[in-house]
């Protein structure tokens, strides 16, 4: 699992690529929480290159979402693959996460 990070005007933008599963979860959770910690709690997660995610991956999204909310921010999920989208819908989390299809809309939402 590869994580790339940039910051656009106070909004953190992270792209993940690979499988977000139990083997990668400790490292990815720690990195994302550190980014929230050091930023404004506003995070866009590009997930188009995440072909598979399990419930441990979901638990990362939930932890990061909660951490962002504590700082008065939010996270936005972008570019869900069909498999990841079904997992999120199966677990009813589309009612919790802000989900967008393009980065401009995500940035507008977080500004």
């Amino acid at each position, binding site marked *: 699992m590869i994580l790339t990070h940039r910051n656009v005007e106070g909004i953190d933008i992270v792209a993940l690529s690979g499988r977000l599963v139990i083997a990668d979860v400790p490292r990815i959770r720690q990195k994302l929480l550190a980014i929230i910690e050091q930023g404004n709690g506003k995070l866009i997660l590009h997930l188009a290159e995440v072909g*598979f995610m399990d419930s*441990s991956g979901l638990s990362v999204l939930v932890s990061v979402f909660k951490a962002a909310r504590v700082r008065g921010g939010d996270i936005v999920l972008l570019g869900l693959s069909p498999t990841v989208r079904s997992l999120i819908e199966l677990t009813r*989390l589309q009612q919790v996460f802000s989900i967008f299809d393009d980065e401009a809309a995500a940035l507008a939402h977080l500004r």
Partner: protein
Amino acid sequence: MTRTIVLDIESRPECIELLSGALCGVCHLVLPAVDIAPVNLAMVEAVNNVVEHAYHGESGHSVRVEFELAPNRLHLRVRDRGEPMAPGRLEAVAALVAPDPEDPDSLRTRGRGLAIIKSCMDTVNYEARDGVNTLSMSRALATGEAI
């Protein structure tokens, strides 16, 4: 006629990817496309639970997956020799519901694995016997065995 393949890994998180790859590979050859993702997800969740809970994250133990293809149904069995799940635990799993926006505590960080398994598969049973724990799952296939 029924065909079976057994897949075996060591209880290490990095090995679960091999299982998932192998399962998806078999599925792509012999299952209808719509059945592949739920079967793979259920298997990964079941194996995660074995590694985390039955073996408490300890490597060096065996996790075994039996993939049994009957004409219109797939049987998956995940076996371990670790600590069994508490009796009634599987039956007590509630359906997946949306968290209450007014109540942040209703958004649990974890605890969705068994519910996901139950919603991906038609039948889910657990048995601990003679030191071997078996989670047996089955799913009716969309259009029979052949693609």
